[in-house]
Every structure is written in C-alpha cells, then in structure tokens.
C-alpha cells in the first residue's frame, strides 16, 4: 500500500512539475506577445506622430514660402508694368523667365499645401454652381498653345451637362492636371480628347490620349503623392508626382470616383465620375 501511495505521489509531483513548466512557457509566450503588442502600439504612435510632423512641416514650409513669393511676384509685376521705367525687349524677356519660374514655384507651393491639407482631412472646398461642360471648354482653350507646340490634336468632345455643386477652382484643376498630364505623355502628332457627358445621376468626365501609356505595375500606385511612373523617369519627363494625387483628392472631396484604363504604347484614359447629389438649381448660393 505504501509503495502504491508513494508511486502515485511521485507521479503527482511529476505531473505538477510538468504543469508548472507548461504554465511558465505559456506565461512567457503571453508576456512576449504582450511586449510585441506594446511595441507595435508604440511604433504606431510614433508613425502617426511622424506623419503629423511631416504634414505640419509641409504646411509650415508652404506658408512661409507664400509671403516672400508675394513680394517677388509683386515687385516683378511692378517692373514688368514699367512702373520703374521702360524695359528693352531683352530685359523683358529675362524678367519673363523669372516670372514663369516664380509661377512654377507658386504652383508647387500651392500643390504641397493642398496635399498636406488633404492628408490631414482639412481640405476646405468652396461651394458654388459649377458648369463642368464650360470648365472642359475653358481648359481645352487654355491648353491649345501647349498642344500646338507639340503638334498634338487637342479635341473637345463634350456635351452640355447639368450644373453641380462644388468648388469651381478645384474642379478646373482636375481638368487642367489631367490635360497637362495627357499632353506631357503623348508624343508629337498624337491626340488628346476631353469629354463630359451625363450618365444617369453622374457626370462622366474623360480625358484620353494616344500617349505612351502606364505600365500595369505602376497603375495601383499612380495616385499616390510623389509617385512617378517608371516611364516618366525613364524618359526624364518632368513632374513632381503631385498632379494625380491632387486630382484624386479633389474628386473624392466631391464624392466622386476616378479610374484609369491604359495600354502601354497605345494610350491612357482617365475616367472621372462626379455625382449630381445636389442639383445646382436647388442650391442656394451662399451669401
């Protein structure tokens, strides 16, 4: 009897030791998992903080650039308006180069500020009646000289559409960015077509080109800010990689959608759908 009890005791002690060991292992695993979770929470917090700092930095830089740009362009205009005396043709040509480039800088600053605001969810849109057909026509007219320079056939195939409520200046930017993009990536002698049409309760905008196209591998990242397609880099086509990110942000701020269809070497079409959620006729202009 004593032997049997001792044997059982020994087994129990052994079992208890095994249990204790697996408990320790489980505890260890749990505390490891807990440490990993804490590290991830911490890392997440740091990433969010970095993201916030980056947006703040972008916004600060853009703001700080705006005041000096006001002066640069303001004084330049004074000289170009011949407020300080007559200019000879060469002086005018040189100063026009300064003006062009300060204009580029100005747009870049505006674009940087825009993406920073969009990322931070602080996009402020003006609300008014917008005639997209008219905007398309204006954009095409404005881009004619650039198209002519590359012998590109720029075609307006738009039909009148009902007005919608949105930010006129920003929606003009959608057309301008898409069309200047299309012109940039279309070789001489090609065609760029801009169209608007009513599609149920949406207005559909299309900008299509017979350009070099976008490789399939690049397409998913095309609307990321600062993303540059490999073909753009290979051919040293200038750009900041902000244009399409801005287009997407504007379209989405108007509750619309954008997608692309592209064949390498054949051309690209950008489709934008904007809902006519509020018919502009029922919309009271803000006082």
């Amino acid at each position, binding site marked *: 009897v004593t032997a049997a009890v001792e044997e059982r005791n020994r087994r129990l002690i052994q079992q208890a030791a095994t249990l204790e060991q697996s408990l320790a292992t489980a505890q260890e695993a749990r505390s490891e998992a807990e440490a990993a979770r804490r590290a991830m929470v911490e890392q997440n917090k740091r990433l969010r903080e970095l993201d916030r700092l980056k947006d703040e930095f972008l916004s600060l830089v853009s703001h700080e650039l*705006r005041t000096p740009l*006001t002066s640069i362009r*303001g*004084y330049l205009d004074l000289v170009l308006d011949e*407020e300080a005396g007559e200019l000879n043709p060469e002086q005018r040509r040189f100063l026009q180069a300064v003006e062009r480039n300060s204009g580029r800088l100005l747009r870049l600053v505006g674009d940087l500020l825009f993406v920073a605001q969009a990322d931070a969810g602080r996009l402020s849109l003006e609300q008014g009646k917008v005639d997209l057909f008219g905007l398309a026509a204006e954009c095409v007219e404005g881009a004619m000289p650039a198209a002519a320079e590359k012998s590109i056939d720029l075609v307006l195939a738009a039909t009148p559409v009902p007005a919608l409520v949105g930010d006129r200046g920003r929606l003009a930017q959608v057309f301008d960015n898409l069309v200047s993009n299309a012109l940039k990536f279309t070789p001489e002698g090609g065609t760029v077509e801009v169209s608007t049409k009513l599609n149920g309760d949406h207005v559909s905008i299309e900008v299509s080109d017979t350009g070099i196209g976008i490789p399939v591998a690049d397409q998913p990242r095309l609307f990321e800010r600062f993303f540059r397609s490999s073909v753009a880099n290979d051919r040293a086509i200038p750009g900041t990689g902000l244009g399409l990110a801005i287009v997407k942000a504007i379209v989405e701020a108007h509750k619309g959608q954008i997608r692309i269809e592209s064949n390498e070497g054949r051309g690209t079409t950008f489709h934008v759908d904007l809902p006519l959620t509020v018919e502009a006729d029922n919309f009271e202009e803000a006082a």
Partner: protein
Amino acid sequence: VIEPRPGLLVLVADDDEDILQLLSFRLERAGYEIAVARSGDEALRLALDLLPAVAILDGMMPGLDGFEVTRELRRNTPTSTTPVILLTARAEASDIARGMAAGADEYVKKPFDARDLVDRVDRLLRPRLIST
C-alpha cells in the same frame, strides 16, 4: 471707369517691410493717400487717430495681430464700419471664419496680386468714389 481721388486714406499694416512698400506704391499710384503701420498696436493707434477709408491688415503681426485689431476697430464707434481687408498666409477655412467673425470685410490669401488688392479697395470705396 472710376478714378480714385486723393483725400481717401488707406491704412496698410504689415510687419513685412517689402509687402508694406509694395502695397503703398500700388495704392499711391492708384491715387490713394497712405498711412503705414508696422505692428498691430501701431495700426490700431493710427486707425483711431486718422480714421482711414479702408484698413488693410496683415493677419500675423507682432503684438496685436490683424484679427485683434479688427475686433478693436469694430468696438470703437468711429471705426465700427471702416472696411477691413485681412491679409494672411494661412488659407484654411477656420482662419477665414475667424477673420469674418472678427468683423473683416474681405479676406485675402497670400500670395496675392497687389493689383487685385487695389481693385478690392476700389470696390469697397465705390460708393464714396462716386459721391466725391
């Protein structure tokens, strides 16, 4: 076409000397008389002393900023209806709302075209320009 006439005083306040001179030059060319201030406190003192026809105030100045000067002008009877144009490098909706809440008539974002600013002053003073 309305020709601005002398005798209409525009107060321009900005701590950026170049912008101050640029605006003064354009406004003088358009026929306005100019008073300049380089801080919000100076702007408020000059506005109450000289009672300008329009005040152009930079939003961010040392001491009192443009928003605070606007509020003070509204609180004082002689300047309670003086047209105020606020200038700012910040272009967010909350700033515009803040400017309007302070009682500004117009809100101009930097970078602005100085010629456009002169047009705005002309527009604000149109009733007075016609009557002179």
